[in-house]
Structures are given as structure tokens and as C-alpha cells.
């Protein structure tokens, strides 16, 4: 049986003349069919929240001296941490691909006289920018810059 939606979903501001049955959610929401991708997309937010705490901890370790920083780096080699970071990488890729797929059609038909390029071009540009940023950051982390 279907689960209830918000009891006031699509209710008119004034009640009608007859009693109505409350609205129900679509059967497949939130974990079946196409809703699964959307739900996973939203759930990645929890992962980013944890990543935020990890980053804060890393900043705190940096400010606490070389020993604390070194200890944190050693903790990062723990298989659980490695698995967490890999999961985060998968989540970032998933969100990026979904966002890039939907972004082109969200562009207005024109801004003043200027028209945005066709959807496939915007799509390709997003991937080029993503790849470019990844390369720059990878070079910085490898010590190639600075």
C-alpha cells in the first residue's frame, strides 16, 4: 500500500464540499525506479557533512604542530579512512555527472541579445573545466606548482 504524502499536499485553500482521502506518495519514492538516483544524490549531502568535519579536524591538526599533523596523516592510511575517501570520490563523480547532465537545459534561452551555446557544447565545456581543475589540483598536490 502507498505511504501518505504531506497531508496538505495539493489541498485547496478552502476545503471542498466532500470529504477527501489524503494524498499518497508515488509508489516508487524514494528508493525505487528513477527516484533512487535522486535520493542517492540527496544522500551524498550527509557524506559531504562528514567530509567537512574531517577537513576541520585536518585544519585543527595543522595548527597543533607537526606531531599532530603527522599522526593524522598516519590515521589517513587506515583502510577505513581510505574506503571513506574512495566513497567520497565516487559520490563527487556521481553528483558531478548528474549535475552536468541537467545543467545545460537549465540555461535561459538568452540573456539580453546573447544566447548560450547549444546544450552539448555546454556539457562538453563542463567536463573540460572539471578535468582542468582536477589536473591543476593534482599538479599542486604532487608538488609541481608552488
Amino acid at each position, binding site marked *: 500500500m*502507498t505511504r501518505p*504524502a*504531506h497531508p*496538505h*499536499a*495539493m*489541498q*485547496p*485553500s*478552502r476545503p*471542498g464540499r*466532500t*470529504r*477527501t*482521502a*489524503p*494524498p*499518497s*506518495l*508515488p*509508489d*516508487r*519514492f*524514494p528508493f525505487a*525506479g*528513477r*527516484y533512487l538516483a*535522486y535520493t542517492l544524490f*540527496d544522500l551524498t549531502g550527509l557524506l559531504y557533512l562528514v567530509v567537512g568535519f574531517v577537513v576541520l579536524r585536518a585544519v585543527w591538526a595543522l595548527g597543533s604542530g607537526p606531531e599532530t599533523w603527522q599522526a593524522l596523516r598516519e590515521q589517513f592510511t587506515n583502510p577505513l579512512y581510505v574506503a571513506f575517501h574512495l566513497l567520497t570520490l565516487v559520490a563527487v563523480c556521481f553528483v558531478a555527472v548528474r549535475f552536468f547532465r*541537467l545543467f545545460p*537545459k*537549465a*540555461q*535561459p*534561452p*538568452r*540573456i539580453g541579445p546573447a544566447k548560450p551555446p547549444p546544450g552539448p557544447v555546454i556539457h562538453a565545456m563542463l567536463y573540460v573545466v572539471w578535468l582542468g581543475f582536477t589536473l591543476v589540483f593534482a599538479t599542486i598536490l604532487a608538488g609541481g606548482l608552488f
Partner: protein
Amino acid sequence: MSPAPKKTLVVTRFDPDRDAAPRTQRYEIRVREDWMVLDALNFIKDEIDGTLSHRWSCRMAVCGSCGMMVNGEPRLTCKDPLRQYGETVTVAPLANFPVIRDLVIEMDGFMEKLTSVKPWILRAKQLAVEAGPVRQSPEQLEEFKQFSMCINCMLCYAACPVVANEPDFLGPAAIALGHRYNVDSRDEGASVRNEIFRGEGTVFSCSYANECSEVCPKHVDPAAAVNQAKFNAVIDWAKSLVLPRGGEK
């Protein structure tokens, strides 16, 4: 000649005078190869159970009356071939709407949301008939044409997870139609509608699930309209801050 195949339709029933909550009823019927889901419902209504209530009118995907959940998916039943489903087909009223009776939903809430975005041409000054028609180029038409194909069937509302959880959300079709007039070169009411779009429960409540566009039977892209409307509402707001008279001509 082989007998017509049988299918079982599991239909949601709800009588507000007798039922505490919706229930289901099974109808086993012989169906024809070319039937749509609506044809099967009409057969049940005409031949088996006259108490079954459902909305329909044109039978050619124009009026938008016969939207229902078929096997859990929002469908326009007059253009939904029955043969694509297995032996058992479930038919329920559109999700996210209160149910008046059986497969009939309460649509006043939708009509209120729709009219709130003023889906008609607004002009600062009405043109005289002598001035002749307002000309529009094919490029200008192309900017809004697909959004004007909306038939208000409300399938997008039945698919939208935000509609299910935020009662104030204007919803895909209303925003798409508001946006359709905002990008129409003949219209001068964009600032009025953008003011509405910047309010509570409007375009910025959309989390871009894209389900509305997936289920649209007329291939309108409401998700695109909603997200383009977000952009335009922000640009309009920024212009109102920096330009004299808010950038209005």
C-alpha cells in the same frame, strides 16, 4: 480466432460516504489488443461496475483529464497502451493529490497554484486593434513554444517529490506556464511573475529531481522551465537593484 486475452485491473476505490480509506478492487476482463488503459476503465464502467468513477474527455491526449497512476507511474491513460503491461495492472488516482472518489482527484489546489502565476499575457498598456497584430519571429516563438504544449494533466505534480513534501510549492506545471509567458516577446509581466517566483515555496524549492520532465506526456520540459525561471528571477532581482526603475522599459 483466439479469444481476447484476459487482464486483471486492480483499481483503487474510495467512496467518501462509506470508506474510511481508499481500498482496491480487482476486475478480470477480456481486453482488445489496441486498448489503452482508459478503454479498459471505460469497459469496466459501462459493462461491469457503473459505480467506478474516473475523469476523461477527449481520448486523444489533448484535454489532460485522464491522468492516473498506472503500475505506480503517472500516465495519461488515453495514450497508455494496455498491452505493454503484464496480466495484472494497477490503476490508482494521481499521487500527491487528495482523492475525491475512486480515481478522481481534487484539482482545486492545482487551479489555485496555476492562476497565482498569471498564465496569460500581461501588458502595461493594451494595444489598440488598429495597431495590428504583435509580430513574433520564429526564434522568439521557439523560446517558449515547448512550454505552451502543457495540457495541465498534473502528471508532473504526481511525480514531483517536492510537491509531496512541501504543500506551498507552486509545482512544475504552474511554474512552467508562468515562465512560458515570461519568455514570450509579447508579454510585459515578467517582473510581476518574477516577484511571485522569488517568494516562499516557488522556484527555489525545486531540488531538480527532473521527474516532472520524465513523466510529461507532451514532452514539455518543466524541470528546464523551473530552473530557467530561477535564473531569470535572480537576474530580474539584480537588475531591480542596479538599474533605474528596476530596468523596466
